[in-house]
């Protein structure tokens, strides 16, 4: 034991000035990830400006090399996307789209949460209600819910209400299913004990079912957020006059590829932010999970 202690100082001195290889190994994930992203961006830029075509034309001849130049109208380019983002920020156009999408996202997912979670809990709790609604929910869950969009447009037109409805209809089902699963997997032993001590339905629900269901609800919420983003984009593609989905759609049909990529980047950014938010909430409430449910 004492020997190793003596050996220690040189090791730490060695660590103080690590070799380049050690630095690389420690940050390998970050370095390789960044490298591959930069490589793709460079290739993208190169293809759209025709640099590769210029370089390789002596080898391949002008005819062959010209295939390596893809016009920006098809693929845009990283610099064009950044420039367009700046331009749209300055003109305020981007904020308009973002706020429009944001409002329908918040309204739609709020409705989905308010309807979906209580519905799932109720289905799990009341057997007869479950039997009655099961056929509809299972069929609905197995279907890509976007098929109902044309129907909703017939019902409510192409306004804000339709978009909110579309988001709510695609988002509520994962919430309902996860709340249902939560009640289903509540530890039967705990319920039996509570029953033996003459607890009321309400008490059992509040003290056993609700705490057990938090992690399930959070994973349902994570799925739901993905769905809600699909809802925002699809809803705005079909029925909107502003919003990020509208931006993507209209720019796409008028070959303004730069703007399409600005919209895609915005959606990606929001997805990353929301996922990070859910992750942090999940981490916090993971402690809540009673050991009985984890069995």
């Amino acid at each position, binding site marked *: 034991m004492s020997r190793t202690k003596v050996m220690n100082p040189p090791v730490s001195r060695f660590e103080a000035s690590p070799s380049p290889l050690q630095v690389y190994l420690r940050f390998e994930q970050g370095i390789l*990830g960044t490298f591959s992203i930069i490589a793709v961006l460079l290739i993208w830029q190169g293809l759209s400006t025709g640099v590769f075509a210029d370089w390789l034309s002596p080898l391949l001849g002008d005819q062959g090399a010209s295939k390596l130049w893809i016009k920006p109208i098809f693929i845009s380019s990283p610099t064009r996307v950044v420039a367009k983002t700046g331009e749209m920020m300055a003109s305020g156009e981007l904020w308009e789209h973002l706020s429009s999408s944001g409002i329908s996202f918040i309204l739609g997912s709020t409705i989905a949460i308010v309807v979906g979670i209580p519905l799932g809990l109720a289905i799990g*709790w009341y057997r007869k209600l479950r039997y009655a609604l099961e056929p509809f929910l299972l069929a609905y869950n197995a279907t890509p819910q976007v098929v109902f969009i044309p129907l909703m447009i017939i019902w409510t037109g192409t306004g804000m209400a339709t978009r909110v409805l579309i988001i709510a209809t695609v988002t509520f089902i994962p919430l309902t299913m996860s709340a249902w699963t939560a009640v289903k997997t509540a530890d039967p032993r705990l319920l039996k004990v509570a029953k033996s001590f003459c607890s009321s339905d309400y008490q059992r629900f509040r003290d056993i079912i609700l705490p057990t269901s938090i992690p399930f609800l959070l994973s349902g919420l994570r799925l739901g957020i993905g769905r809600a983003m699909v809802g925002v984009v699809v809803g705005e593609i079909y029925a909107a006059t502003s919003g990020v989905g509208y931006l993507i759609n209209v720019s796409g049909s008028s070959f303004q590829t730069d703007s399409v990529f600005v919209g895609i980047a915005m959606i990606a950014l929001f997805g990353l932010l929301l996922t990070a938010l859910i992750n942090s909430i999940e981490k916090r409430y993971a402690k809540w999970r009673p050991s009985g449910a984890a069995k």
Partner: protein
Amino acid sequence: MSTAIDRRAPTGLRRIYEQNERLIIGVGSVIAFLIIWEAAFRFSWVNPTFISGPSQVFLAAIKTFKSADFHTDIQTSALEFIIGYLMSIGIGVPLGLATGSSKRISYLVSPFVHILNIVPRITLLPVIIIWFGIGIWSKVLVVFLGALIPILISTYGGVKTSEERFMKVARSFNASPSRTFITIVLPGTVPFIFTGIKYGTGRALLGVIVGELYAATAGIGYFIAAAGNSLETDKMLVGVGVVIAVGLIALEVLNRVEKRFDRWRPVVESEKS
């Protein structure tokens, strides 16, 4: 939840009801729904154009199933689905195995997988249409991208959860990496691959429908969109019904296949949990 506090042995009709309660209530609620829907249509409680009626939809279904156009639509959608889906399995499974077995490959690929997983793939639809036109290939690509991610992630997870004890034994006996891979990693990954394929199906179906609603000249999504645009609600609901049926059948088949391949999952794992 509130199972039989009532311990009297039920007799006759009551027993039959109790044994089949789930079926009886389920079928009853579906029939009730259809009756209310038909009544709402017959007595014009709601504008009949908006909701049509079950009898109307049934008549429209008979007419639709006979028409040659509809067969083309089904064939087109099926073709898009199958090509895109096979491509996503063909690329997703090997890529998942590669990212699972090599740390470096996973570092290189993971930023893109992560971003693609978060962005709804249908966001890319307008660009894909610019690249591939409104024929079947744009939809094939949407299906491919939709199903690729769940298959890839699930396969990756399967490789990562290879039973540590088996791996140790293999190492102790000096098994070559390729042998370890074929005899331990691969069989252990099969159930995970099927789980991924199951999740991929939902995404793939979504891709077909959204892609065709958006821009197509044939296909079941196109059929629904066209019927909707001309306010032929009954015809549109036939299309919706076909999609629901396909979704249900696909889910049922995949559940069975998954269960079948689940037997492969190493027993040790279930002991651990």
